[in-house]
């Protein structure tokens, strides 16, 4: 998305600040001329991906959920998506922080006997680029269906949240994935994400449907954000990660700037969003009794693709 400088003010802004900006900016020197794009209002030279992976560990007996074994994966790409650096993987600490947006997953309706609502877990990361925060709400319903003489157990995880970057940084893609770690067998039976033009308020629901017709249980995830560009979802994320191995058991949702598939391919400094952007995603998985007893965790992996063009870069 290219931002054209308004003709009314750009001339004076350019005259007053051109020299200082030319020294501070890492882009090619030059002066922005009203109504025209100069060489300084130009191209980015790199894009950053920031992916986290962590185990959403669950204890159905206690209803306790926690994030463990977190890793941080970073890489620098050229604007065409070609790697400029190898993928760097480091252990990451689970941070805590204040909410950066308005989002939640809420249980509505009456739960069935044995229903477990785990505690909410937060993924929070603050860096020089900005802040990401995602919240994960796991649930479990034993005795969900009857297969012959066997009762199944269903797990649902609702995720919501997003990223808010500092001045000089712009979001190209921001979202999260949730996957059950089995590459060979399919346990996922339901998924939910919103796709299409980003509304200011997004809600996505997925339900454990009950025989209680008066008030069947459903989980509603919601988020408020700047209504720009689009929301997307799939069994894999917007760029390759190790979680792709679990695509058959994965759900992903992300916000994406229209420049990603537009003619600019997000090459310009003005491409991307400077606002809070995020999304909501649900997954529903079903297990036989012995498989359910073996469920220990789901993978969660928030991801962010962004560009830096201000003096903070480097």
């Amino acid at each position, binding site marked *: 998305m290219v931002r054209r400088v308004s003709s009314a003010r750009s001339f004076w802004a350019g005259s007053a600040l051109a020299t200082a900006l030319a020294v501070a900016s890492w882009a090619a020197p030059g002066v922005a001329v009203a109504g025209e794009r100069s060489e300084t209002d130009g191209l980015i030279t790199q894009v950053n991906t920031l992916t986290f992976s962590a185990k959403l560990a669950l204890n159905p007996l206690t209803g306790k959920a926690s994030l463990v074994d977190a890793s941080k994966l970073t890489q620098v790409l050229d604007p065409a998506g070609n790697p400029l650096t190898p993928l760097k993987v480091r252990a990451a600490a689970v941070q805590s922080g204040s909410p950066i947006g308005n989002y939640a997953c809420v249980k509505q309706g009456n739960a069935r006997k044995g229903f477990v609502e785990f505690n909410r877990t937060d993924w929070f990361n603050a860096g020089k680029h900005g802040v990401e925060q995602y919240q994960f709400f796991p649930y479990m319903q034993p005795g969900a269906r009857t297969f012959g003489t066997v009762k199944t157990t269903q797990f649902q995880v609702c995720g919501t949240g997003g990223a808010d970057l500092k001045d000089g940084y712009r979001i190209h893609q921001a979202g999260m994935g949730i996957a059950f770690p089995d590459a060979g067998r399919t346990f996922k039976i339901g998924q939910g994400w919103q796709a299409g033009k980003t509304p200011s308020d997004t809600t996505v629901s997925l339900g454990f449907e*009950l025989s209680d017709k008066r008030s069947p249980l459903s989980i509603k995830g919601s988020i408020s954000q700047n209504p720009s560009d689009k929301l997307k979802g799939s069994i894999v*994320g917007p760029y390759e990660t190790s979680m792709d191995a679990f695509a058959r058991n994965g759900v992903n949702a992300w916000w994406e700037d229209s420049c990603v598939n537009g003619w600019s391919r997000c090459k310009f400094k003005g491409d991307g969003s400077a606002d809070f952007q995020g999304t909501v995603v649900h997954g529903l998985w*079903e297990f*036989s009794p012995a498989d359910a007893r073996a469920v220990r965790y789901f993978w969660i992996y928030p991801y962010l693709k962004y560009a830096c063009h201000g003096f903070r870069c480097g």
Partner: protein
Amino acid sequence: MRLTGRRDRARVRAFTATLLGLVVFAGVSGCGDDEAAPSALGAASQGRALSAYDLVVVASAENNPLYSDLYGITVDPLSATRITTDKRISSLDAFGGQVVVAAADGPTDRLAFVADNGDLTPIPKLGRPFAYSPNFRADGSVVFRDFVQDNDIAVYRTREWDQTSEQTRTLSRSKEELLGLQLGSDGRLLFLRNNETGDDVVVVENAKGKQRSFRLDGDGAGYLGWGRDHIAATANAADASFGEQATGTVFIAIDTGEQQLVPGWQPIAWNGDGTKVLARSTADLTRSELAFLDPRNPAAPERLGVLPALAIYFGSWMRGT
């Protein structure tokens, strides 16, 4: 159309995997003298009448029980034909050329009749209860199980849908959860009482609600069904994952309660007159090597052949045709 995006590549991978799976499944047909040829997937779209099969079964080509579909089986020559696609069938019964199933409707089971082409149609005026374990009566009525919540207490019900009036009535209610309803003669009902910390129990309930119990040695997950003189149940290894560790068949003499274990063959369905059980070998649960077991002579299985790359879990003989 040039594929450029990550999602496009994922779709190609999924499509290619599906296509390869279909090719492999079709390719193994006809190999070996005793291996039968499973018909092409989706053959039900050819409109073969369900009554043309000897029995219908719940099975999976990927040995993934919770993603099972309905298949039609003919015994001589041995063959399997896929009837439904992606329906996640969890229980069934067949009678008079009709098949009724419980199939996943999202996270929940619902009852439906199966058309010859594999489409599912709701039972008229039944509504959408959370229902399972359907059984046909001879008059075409359907007896099934459902459950409701009453002041946060789960109540399990045996219900009957009448084919003529299309009305439903409750036959019994209980707070006890009994699994795998099977309708027998004289109004008797057969259930499995699951004991998570000990042996499962087979329960016979007469028309007046009086119960007899037969304790199994371990986990009874799998098939449970009435024969003429015996009940057949699946024997499992301890803490079995369904479909992975069946170890044999337990015959329970109805009159005396005497039990006999037939190792190495898990039960699928009694035959039409209830004298023999169609069973599959537990040696390789990714495929179905089939045989008839006669409870009067269980040591001599009557081998029928192999259906490769198809895991059959349980079924219903096509009775009343």
